[in-house]
C-alpha cells in the first residue's frame, strides 16, 4: 500500500465518521465537532489530490495547498460562529427560564 492510498483511505474514513456524527447526533456541540472531522477528511483528500496531480515533476501541486489553507480559515470561522450562537442560545434560554419562573410566582 502506497502512502497516497493510505492517505486517501484515511480521508474517506474521516469523511465517513464526520458525516455519521453530523447526521446521527442532535447535540449542537457534537454536530459542530463532527463537522470539523468531516472538514479534516475533505482537506486531507485535497492533499491526496495534490500528490496525485504532481505529474509535472514537481514534488506536489501547490494549488490544493492554497485551497486547503483557505478552507481551514473558512471552517474555523464557521466553528467560531456556531460556538458563539450556542453560547448566546444558552444565555437566552437561562434568561427566558428565569423570566418564566418569575412570571409564575408573580415576582415581577
Amino acid at each position, binding site marked *: 500500500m502506497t502512502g497516497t492510498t493510505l492517505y486517501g483511505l484515511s480521508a474517506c474514513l474521516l469523511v465517513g465518521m464526520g458525516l455519521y456524527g453530523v447526521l446521527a447526533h442532535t447535540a449542537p456541540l457534537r454536530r459542530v465537532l463532527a463537522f470539523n472531522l468531516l472538514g479534516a477528511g475533505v482537506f486531507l483528500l485535497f492533499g491526496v*489530490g495534490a500528490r496525485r496531480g504532481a505529474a509535472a515533476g514537481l514534488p506536489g501541486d501547490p494549488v490544493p495547498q492554497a485551497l486547503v489553507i483557505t478552507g481551514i480559515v473558512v471552517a474555523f470561522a*464557521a466553528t467560531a460562529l456556531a460556538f458563539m450562537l450556542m453560547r*448566546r442560545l444558552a444565555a437566552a434560554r437561562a434568561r427566558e427560564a428565569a423570566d418564566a419562573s418569575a412570571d409564575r410566582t408573580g415576582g415581577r
Partner: protein
Amino acid sequence: MADAPAPSYLLVLALLVPVIGMLAMTVARLLGLRRVEGIAAVAIAGGLAIAGAIALAVVRSGAALTYAVGGWEPPLGLALRADGVSAVMLAMAALVVAFVALYARPQFAADDDAPEGRRAFAFWSLLMGLWSALNLVLIGEDLFNLFVALELLTFAAVPLVCLDGRAATLEAALRYLVFALIGSALYLLGTAILYGQYGTLDIATLAGLTRPDLATHAAVALMIGGLMAKAALFPLHIWLPPAHAGAPAPASAVLSALVVKAPFFLILRLWFDVLPGPPSLPAAQVFAGLGAAAILVCSVVALRQERLKLMIAYSTVAQIGYLFLMFRLTIEPGVPAWETIGWTGGMLQLVSHAFAKAAMFLAAGLIAEALGHDRIADLAGAGRAVPVSLFAFGLAGLSLMGLPPSGGFVAKLLLLNAATLAGAWWIAAVISVGGLLAAAYVTRVLKRAMAMPPAPLATRPVALSRELAALALALIAVALGLVPLQPFELLAIGRP
C-alpha cells in the same frame, strides 16, 4: 464571442462596493459616528447603478462580461463572468436590496448607544456583506471561489435570522447553520474530487474536459446534494420555515427572495456547465419529483399554518419546488436548454418569486407591527389599519398563485407549456394544483384581513414609505407579466 477581450471592471465593483460600504460602517463607528444607515444608502445607490450598468452592457454587446482577477487568466487565475442570466439576477438582487433598505431605514435607525443600536449596526453591515457574497456567487467562475462565496453568504445570513436574540430564533439560526455547513462540506468534497480528476476548478475550462465517468458523476452528485440542503429543496427544507419566519421582516425578505436562490443558481451551473454530455433524464426526473413533492406538501402545510410569517416561509419552500421542475422541462432533443421555454419559465419563476416573496414578507411585517401580532385567525381589521400593505400582499399573492397579470402567471404558463410539450403530464397537473393551493392560502389571509373586527382595534401607525416599498416590489412582480411568451433572448446571452 464568449471571451470578450476587454476586462470589465464593473464586475469587480459589484463585489467591492458593498464591502467598502461594510468597512466604512466599521470605520465610521470607530470615528464616533453613531448612525450607519446613511452609509448603507450610499453603498446601495452605488451598487444599484453598477448592477444597472452591467445589465445594460450585457444587453448592448450581446455577450458576457468577463474579468480575470489580477490579470491571471484561468486555469491559473480566477475569472469573473456575467452572462445574461447573471446580469438579470444581479439586477434582481440590487432592486430587492434597495427596496428592503428603504423599508428597513426607519426600523433600524437607532443611535449606537441606544439598546437598538447594536442591532441596527449588525443589520446594515450584514446586509452589505450578504449582498457582496451573493454577487460573487452570481459572477464567480471558479468552483472553490464559489465555495468561499457560499460560505460568506451563510455567515452573513445566519446572524440575520437571530437579530432579536430570543432563544427560539437563536435555535433556528443554529439549525440553519448546521444544515448549511453540512451542505458546504459535501460541496467541498465534490470539489476535491473534481480537482483530483481534472486539475482545474474553472467552470469554463471544466466544461470542455469533463468525462461521463463514475468519479465525475459522484463529485457533481455530492455537490448538488450539498447545495440542495442549502437551497431547502424538499425534504431538506426543515431548517427554512423557523429561520425565515423568526427573522425581522426585512431580513426574512432578503433571505427568502435572494439567499436560497444562490445555491439553486450553482446547481444550474453544475448541471448545465460542468456535467458532460446530454443531461440525464432519470436525474432530472428525481429533481422534478422532489420539486413536485415540495409544491404539494409544503403548500398544504402552508395552508394549515396559524402564523402569517410561517405560512409565507412554507410558501417559499413550495415555490422553490417549481424551480426544480426546470431540469426536466429543459430537456428537448436537439434544442439547447437555454432556447427552451422551460428555461425562460424557470428563470422567470425565480425572478418573480424573489420580488413577490420580498413584498409579501415586508407587507406581513407591517401587518404584524400594526396589529401587534401575526396570528392569521385574528387578522380582522388589518385591511383598515394598513390597506397599502394588504394590497401589496394581495398583488404578491397574485404572482404566487400564477394569475394574470403577473410574472408568476407567465412563469407558470411557460412551465405548463413546457410540461405539455415534454409529455410530462404529471408535472402539468402538479403546477395546476400548486396554483390552486397557493390561491387557497393567500385568499385565506385576505379574507380574514378584510373582515370587520369584532371590537374596535387599537393599531399602531406605520410609516407610509415602508408600505410603499412593499408595494413597489409587488408591482415589479406584476410588471414581469409583460415579458413575452417565448424563449427570452436576454437569458441565453453568453451561453456556449
